[in-house]
């Protein structure tokens, strides 16, 4: 008998069995197609780091034309919604009660010092609980202040002397729109979840239901079981992936500057890695409770926090940076952010793909070693 043909027949049979199982329990199809759509919609619209409409309390102790022009600059800025308060005490109460995010305070000698000795202080308080937003808000306030200074000098017919100014150019995302980097990153997070969730319970389920024993008495090899289980889920996962990319491009208007084929190749690699990871979990765990628990712990939060999706990896302590190397999403986030915003930068795409390739072999190899056709 032709051994290869027999093996192929067994693999095809296994794929058929898994596919039927997927079709009968629609939860897998929901994971692959509906989940990414819902998540991407929710996050694409919900997640943003661009502080707009910062509520700013303004306290002017002695209103005049100078204070009016300064407060006017805040009103004109798209980042602020100024609210006037009569006294600093009231404004501080509002800041404590989270009714405003910051205070600009012009004391009663503001104009006098402005005209006489200069360096007239503008008091600024911001709520620093969210340090990142506070820093960004301070940056905006600084910008408003600098613009006002030059307008003021021009109106006075003076020459405002600024020794050094910055001419900034922000590449790849000139409008500094945080959605452009968050959406590609979210795709990586979502696909990590989906890949691991699809497979993490498939083997554990066979053990718990006792159907693993039934499979064992058939002539099928463990390798054939693995392939048979991977193929249908790979197809499902890639479908979800394409859906996410389409939404990123057409719904969220994120530019896709790299080539579609590079994106497809990298995605296929990443999908294999996360399916392999899920498979390994389900083989080691043997109970669905543990498999589910482990797959949530090792996929979602690490992909969210350690992948460079939001938090900059190079700023983490050395030891943590080292740990990020075993998070597959790290490589995929780097590839996606580059392919979407910068284009086909091969050194980045290839080096990160190589890392994914290694991880794929490690996970699938471990899964192969850990799975034995044996009853313990």
């Amino acid at each position: 008998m032709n051994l290869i043909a027999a093996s192929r027949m067994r693999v095809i049979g296994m794929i058929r069995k898994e596919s039927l199982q997927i079709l009968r329990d629609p939860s897998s199809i929901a994971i692959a197609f509906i989940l990414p759509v819902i998540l991407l919609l929710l996050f694409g619209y919900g997640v943003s780091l661009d502080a707009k409409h910062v509520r700013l309390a303004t306290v002017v102790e002695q209103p005049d034309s100078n204070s009016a022009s300064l407060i006017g600059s805040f009103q004109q800025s798209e980042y602020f919604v100024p609210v006037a308060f009569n006294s600093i005490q009231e404004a501080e109460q509002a800041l404590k009660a989270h009714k405003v995010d910051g205070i600009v305070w012009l004391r009663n000698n503001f104009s006098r010092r402005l005209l006489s000795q200069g360096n007239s202080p503008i008091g600024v308080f911001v709520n620093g609980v969210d340090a990142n937003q506070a820093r960004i808000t301070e940056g905006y306030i600084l910008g408003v202040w600098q613009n006002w200074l030059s307008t003021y000098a021009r109106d006075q017919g003076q020459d405002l002397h600024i020794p050094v100014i910055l001419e900034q150019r922000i590449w790849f995302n000139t409008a500094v729109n945080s959605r452009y980097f968050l959406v590609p990153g979210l795709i990586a997070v979502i696909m990590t979840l989906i890949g691991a969730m699809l497979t993490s319970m498939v083997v554990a389920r066979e053990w718990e239901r006792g159907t693993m024993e039934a499979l064992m008495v058939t002539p099928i090899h463990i390798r054939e079981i693995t392939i048979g289980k991977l193929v249908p889920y790979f197809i499902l996962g890639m479908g979800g992936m394409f859906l996410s990319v389409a939404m990123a491009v057409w719904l969220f208007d994120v530019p896709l500057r790299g080539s579609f084929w590079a994106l497809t190749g990298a995605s296929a690699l990443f999908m294999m890695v996360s399916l392999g990871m899920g498979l390994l979990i389900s083989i080691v765990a043997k109970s669905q409770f543990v498999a589910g628990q482990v797959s949530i712990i090792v996929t979602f939060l690490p992909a969210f926090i350690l992948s460079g999706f939001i938090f900059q990896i190079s700023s983490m302590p050395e030891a943590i940076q080292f740990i990020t190397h075993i998070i597959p999403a790290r490589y995929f986030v780097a590839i996606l952010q580059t392919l979407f915003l910068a284009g086909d930068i091969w050194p980045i795409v290839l080096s990160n793909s190589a890392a994914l390739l290694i991880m794929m072999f490690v996970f699938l190899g471990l899964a192969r070693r850990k799975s034995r056709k044996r009853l313990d």
Partner: protein
Amino acid sequence: MQTLRRIFALAVKELLAILKDKQSRFVLIAPPIAQLMIFGYAATYDLNNIPVAIYNEDHSTISRDLVAKITGSPHFQLVSDIDNDGQISSLIDEKKVLMVLHLGQHFSADLKRGHTAKVQVIIDGRNSNTALLTLGYLRSIITEFNLNWSRQNGLPDPPASLQIRSWFNKNLLSRWFVVPGIIGLITLVITTIVTALSVAREREAGTFDQLLITPLRPIEILLGKSVPGILIGLTEGSLILLVAIYWFDIPLRGSLGALYLGMFLFLLSATGVGLMISSLAVTQQQGILGAFLFLVPSVILSGFATPIANMPEFVQLLTHINPLRYFLIILRGVFLEGDSYSLLFNQYWPMAIIALLTLTAAGWLFRHRMN
């Protein structure tokens, strides 16, 4: 009395079911602690050692002085000195540096003649938040340089200057913001998982029918199944709290009682959601899927990493049904702002309502989802 004894017995049985297995005991204890340690260090927006390349065409002491101020700051790290335009794009494209600073030939001459000298800066905008923060760090160095230069050369001060102070977190350490949030994050994950599978597991094993024919009333089953989730959540929450205070040195300025009241209500609502998922799920796989479907949006739309105020109106409205949203405000309020019960009242009652609704729904589903 009878009721209490029954609930107690069921709670003990549930706890044993979770804790007797070595593997599941391990996944409940080790990962949360490991996650707190790792995420506590990793989850920060503060940037240090930003890789920088300098392209200085002006070889004067003044320009070298400015460059030294920038590269000497803990935020920046000099990676390479370059001598022509052509090198810039490959350095940025391949992420070798995040920022290139270009000082033209006339930099010091302009400065000395009293003209405004320009410094060009090119920043990798692939992560726009990082780009903005980098620009912010650079701006404050330049502002300080300008002030010193003006003073040294007898130039007038600017007519007005900013005096910025930040409340509650003077040095704007983002760890102070993130670590209290992780307490909420991890207790939510653990409690949801423990409860979301509790009924589905019995359904798959066929023991749920047995439970239903015991003298236990549905409300007793509900309470007996809630207790372990809350107990495990409280234990893990306290453990993480200790690490946050004593290891990460996050200041605890408010009332601990107010925090625990919040934690209890939060766990109650998380348990309610978990049990609801569990009674809807026929298989454990569906239970896990349900837990995921609840957890992921809960975390992302909670204000943990990105502020709720930046979301569109509709999504902001949606966050009001998310218990984590309220608990995060309580955690940060108690830790950093020194809040007590009265200021947090508006966070307590929504969680109480969510808990009431979800637990009632779970109890109803226990009885009405027999097939």
